[in-house]
């Protein structure tokens, strides 16, 4: 699937129930056109990971996901030799009185492909989407390793040689900014910061994702969350929380927000005791009054 204009891509994302603003659509469009990795940053729960999933669906291709964590190494991210099979192979040959050769032992049959190698060695006609999620959780060593991969789309395995992608995968990297990613890595990518959405956009997202939610409920929940983002909270609720909350209220058969249900379900959107105490105090009532007046 090819997109000729940014408008076309934006509309296509909409069909997948992903509401992207012009800035994000431009960044994604350019990532596809220039075949450059796209680096997405933003507060938790604004739909960074979702971009990759939607893109894979849209292009009818595979999503290869690598969740980062501290200490993530080549053996878990790129490749590993299947030692058990190698051992069995040696024993088998031995029982026949033969000697194993290096070339066969370190051949493709014994290679376990991890996400990054899969993305480079894909065999399908459609280029896969490679999602490197929460890069800020990994450490400097892994970041340095990514430099080679992201600039040349190639991986070097000592026993086999250098493997280069015939067509580079579409790469999306995400970060929650729990630490700064090194400039050298960012320089190889397109960068986009995803903001919290405007009220209209967020209502559109709720409608797209949860078409069965009552219109009034969706409006009120969104307005409430939008107001909450101006309160001095330790952890602000993202779009993911808006959707979760709407889902929860639909499950409770609510048609509109009431103070009682807000109190009962605060745990869905706020995850810190201090924040819950603060909102329960008087803030929830004030916000609700303001919304109802509109």
């Amino acid at each position, binding site marked *: 699937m090819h997109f000729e204009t*940014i408008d076309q891509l934006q509309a296509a994302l909409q069909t997948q129930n992903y509401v992207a603003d*012009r800035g994000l659509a431009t960044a994604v469009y350019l990532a596809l056109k220039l075949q*450059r990795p796209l680096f997405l940053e933003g507060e938790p729960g604004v739909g960074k990971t979702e971009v990759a999933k939607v893109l894979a669906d849209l292009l009818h291709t595979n999503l290869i996901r690598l969740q980062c964590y501290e200490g993530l*190494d080549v053996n878990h991210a790129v490749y590993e*030799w299947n030692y058990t099979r190698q051992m069995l192979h*040696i024993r088998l040959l031995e029982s026949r009185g033969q000697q*194993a050769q290096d070339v066969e032992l370190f051949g493709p049959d014994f290679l376990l492909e991890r996400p990054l190698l899969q993305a480079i060695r894909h065999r399908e006609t459609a280029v896969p989407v490679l999602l490197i999620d929460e890069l800020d959780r990994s450490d400097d060593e892994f970041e340095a390793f990514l430099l080679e991969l992201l600039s040349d789309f190639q991986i070097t395995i000592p026993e086999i040689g250098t493997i280069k992608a015939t067509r580079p995968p579409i790469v999306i990297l995400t970060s929650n900014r729990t630490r700064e990613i090194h400039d050298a890595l*960012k*320089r190889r990518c397109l*960068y986009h910061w995803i903001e919290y959405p405007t009220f209209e956009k967020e209502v559109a997202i709720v409608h797209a994702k949860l078409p069965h939610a009552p219109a009034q409920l969706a409006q009120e929940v969104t307005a409430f969350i939008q107001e909450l983002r101006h309160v001095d909270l330790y952890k602000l609720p993202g779009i993911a929380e808006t959707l979760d909350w709407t889902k929860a209220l639909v499950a409770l058969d609510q048609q509109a927000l009431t103070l009682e249900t807000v109190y009962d379900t605060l745990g869905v959107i706020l995850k810190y005791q201090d924040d819950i105490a603060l909102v329960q105090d008087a803030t929830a009532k004030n916000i609700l009054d303001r919304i109802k007046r509109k």
Partner: protein
Amino acid sequence: MSTPNSGNLLHNLLLFGRLLRSLGMDVNPGSMIDLVDALQFVEIGRRSDFYFTARSLLVHRYEDLLLFDRAFALFWQHPHRKSAPFGVGERPFPTPTPPNQQTNKPTNQYTNTPIYQIHATRTYSQREILRHKDFSELTADEAQTVRRFMAELAWELGQRRTRRHKMGGNGNHLDLRRTFRHTLRTGGELLKWPRRTPKFKPRPLIILADISGSMEPYTRLLLQFIYSLAAGLTQNVAAFVFSTHLTHITRQLRSRELDRALADISRQVTDWSGGTRIGAALKTFNYDWGRRVLGRGAVVLLISDGWDRGDPDLLRREIGRLHRSCHRLIWLNPLLGSPRYQPLTRGMQAALPHIDDFLPVHNLASLEDLATHLAGFVVRGKRPFRPKPTGAAFVKKS
């Protein structure tokens, strides 16, 4: 952008790139080529598309977004309102060191080169006196000497066991790759079991310094102390100062010269010698910075005299949160140097249960003690531990 003379576009783009670079943004010829490449694919007549294209290719730091926006608005404005693109943004242009310093230096009148002077080191006894003299009582000349001694102190901070392993040693993890290699040599017999051991890395250091009115006699020397600490440690150091609000000064500390760094900091900070609201400052830190800089077992140095005019409950809550999210919280108090001092202020009382170490910082000797104390955290192989919060934190007086 819809000017008929599109030959100017390339020229203007390059000028724009130069403007961004002069503002301190990381824009190189490579990214400009990418931008020109990318513009083939977008409708540049549409201002927003042009803007987003340029932004996604030229900006890769959140902090630079605002700067870029301003530069963009100014540079690509309508030609009728044309004005020279000066005075954009807040980042100061590099300024040379003040001329009076250079003119004061003696110069060789023939070659016109400065004559280098070697500072005569003070005698032992003088140094001993200086070591124990309170920072607030130093004369300008003595402060200069103390500065030099400060730069000579060697700093070492505890190490943290990372989740990454390296070859060798006799750790708990088997190195399967090398085990298999050995097996090949012995024809399929497992004789050797090479292992992998955890890697250690220095802990990040966070410094929060009080620059309110009551701390004024110490401020200048403490900033120098922070500078020499940041320069002397290899790991990540993030520094903040506060009196009524919190200011991030890590970038300024990276300057190679102390005087330049101090000048940059004084320009950045707007609340010198103001009142103290430690609780509020810590809250800003916890909410806006904590999650970004406190990861990976950080050690926090809080420098303050504890004279807090804010709400003690807020201070208690926020210092508790800070304490729970760092590896070790060290409070440095210049007043602790006085033998009569008791931590009785409301602020100190609220904070004490949440402090791991309570140490003086009022003279050179106390800084040397601090260096020894920090170096003592180097517990390799052991898991981090924290003494039970008994309410009576470790108090050390010199």
